[in-house]
């Protein structure tokens, strides 16, 4: 047993070192994403411009500094934060529901959040002092209500929360919600442009204030989720098992669901409906670090950031000067992934 424990220690060390791979990857992708675009800046110059901006030194080339720091950096940071939020939220849902296909988009939570945001835009709801605040708050509230409705129905229909039940309910709910969104669009002639622009899911208008809002929600929501790693492991083994080992099942569900709704809500409010990120990243990360949420959740956070920065880079460069909506890129990759996971689960490969 002593020998086994030593082996265990070494493996543990290697696994924790593996944790550093994802933050490092996210950092590298960030620098690359900031340097590439309609005007490509050499990596060395990009790093220098970022360093000078961070330390408050004067910039030698103001044009390049303006492109890197003022134009691209806010957008890339928003992409990173949205990717991180959606991925850690997806990983948490997949553990809580013991279902590898659970995600904001497959469950219909993103659709619900979008409805909340559209209601806020269509009826011109505003919070005093925060022009964009009402869209965010409404998206978060509607995300939470959607989760409560979907989970409530799922538990009543099928207590084991099987994949079929969850996915079917998600599809039905998404369709229902999108019909209401269409209805709202039909009756809001003057707001139609801002609604459709927002629904396309683009980060073109991302700014530093949005990045700050994302960072704030992410700091609270992701911390709450990461702190539930042990409990989510038990849920991923089975909800009954979680109860049997002494977990306060109800409390953990509330903590995780509120955090996930807040994350999805704020991400959808800033970036529109960006589908499948919460499905693809945790799945890829799980292949590398295993199903243990104490490693999976932090790794998904950084892996998701890297994934969405790359997706955004593809969206704005592949058909340059034309820009693709980022949701198109993630849905394209995500749909193929979704099919692969579903196929393998069904065929037992």
């Amino acid at each position, binding site marked *: 047993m002593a020998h086994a424990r030593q082996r265990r220690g070494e493996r543990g060390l290697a696994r924790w070192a593996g944790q550093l791979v994802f933050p490092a990857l996210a950092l590298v992708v960030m620098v690359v994403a900031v340097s590439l675009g309609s005007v490509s800046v050499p990596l060395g110059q990009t790093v220098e411009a970022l360093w000078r901006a961070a330390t408050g030194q004067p910039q030698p080339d103001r044009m390049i500094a303006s492109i890197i720091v003022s134009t691209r950096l806010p957008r890339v940071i928003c992409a990173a934060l949205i990717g991180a939020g959606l991925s850690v939220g997806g990983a948490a849902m997949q553990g809580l529901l013991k279902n590898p296909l659970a995600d904001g988009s497959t469950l219909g939570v993103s659709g619900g959040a979008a409805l909340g945001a559209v209601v806020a835009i269509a009826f011109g709801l505003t919070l005093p002092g925060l022009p964009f605040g009402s869209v965010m708050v409404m998206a978060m509230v509607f995300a939470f209500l959607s989760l409560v409705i979907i989970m409530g129905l799922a538990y009543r229909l099928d207590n084991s929360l099987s994949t079929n039940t969850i996915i079917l309910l998600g599809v039905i709910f998404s369709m229902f919600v999108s019909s209401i969104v269409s209805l709202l669009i039909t009756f809001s002639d003057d707001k139609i442009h801002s609604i459709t622009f927002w629904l396309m899911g683009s980060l073109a208008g991302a700014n530093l204030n949005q990045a700050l809002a994302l960072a704030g929600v992410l700091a609270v929501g992701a911390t709450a989720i990461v702190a539930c790693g042990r409990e989510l492991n038990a849920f991923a083994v089975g909800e009954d098992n979680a*109860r049997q080992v002494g977990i306060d099942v109800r409390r953990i569900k509330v903590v995780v669901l509120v955090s996930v709704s807040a994350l999805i809500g704020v991400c959808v409010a800033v970036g529109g409906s960006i589908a499948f990120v919460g499905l693809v990243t945790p799945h890829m990360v799980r292949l590398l670090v295993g199903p243990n949420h104490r490693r999976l959740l932090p790794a998904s956070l950084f892996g998701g950031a890297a994934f969405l920065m790359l997706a955004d880079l593809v969206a704005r460069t592949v058909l340059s000067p034309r820009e693709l909506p980022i949701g198109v890129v993630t849905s394209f990759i995500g749909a193929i992934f979704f099919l692969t996971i579903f196929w393998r689960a069904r065929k037992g490969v």
Partner: protein
Amino acid sequence: MSELLSVRDLTVSYGDLTIVDRVSFSLSAGEWLMVVGPNGAGKSTIVSAISGGAPHRGRVSVLGRSLTSYKPSALARVMGVLAQRHNVGYAFTVEEVVRLGRYCHRRGVFAGSTSQDEAAIERAVAMTGLEPIWRQSVLTLSGGELQRTFLAQLFAQDPQALILDEPTNHLDLAYQEQVFDLISQWLKEPGRAVLSVVHDLSLARAYGSSALLLDRGRSVGSGPVSDTLSRQRLSQVYEMDVYAWMERMLSQWQEVVTL
């Protein structure tokens, strides 16, 4: 205090349908109580009521305190439950599943494992013989290995009472013997008790010290195994001569021996 669990007038009903009707029993240290009865007698429902799942009426107390007054982790330190079947969704290792058993003993959100945790896990692994498959994914295990893994989780949890719902229902004979022997070995430590639902009347007689016989949600008898599972009572509840049946089954093997 030797009485670990006391149940008075436990009633479970869904709408107009009463599944368990005013059942009372108690479980004391050193006792292995077998809950026995035909299909639909309410055996598993009793287990899910006392393990916190199903809504119920009546009084259930654990170590003299009402069940509902316990925090989940405090309850898990007194009472551990083993489910009938396990269906794990992800490729967790045997180690990860067994370690979850220590959850109710942890001190803080980010607290690491203590030497007490390690000792309890090592004991559980030694008892269940999981060392060779310690690093294996639970998705690759046989039914018997999976049941041993969750039994090790339960041993690591180190409760005073085990609640088992048909622990060997779908397992081969060799695994049945293994699991029941493991549990009787666990029971030898003072202050411990076991309650198990069993389908197999021979297992109930072989391992149980006392029994609770149920028929359509009602208690028909309780007390020492041999008195409770008497020929007359069993014939009544199972609507057949159980003793004659068991003798007929055994005679199949006696013929083999004499040949």
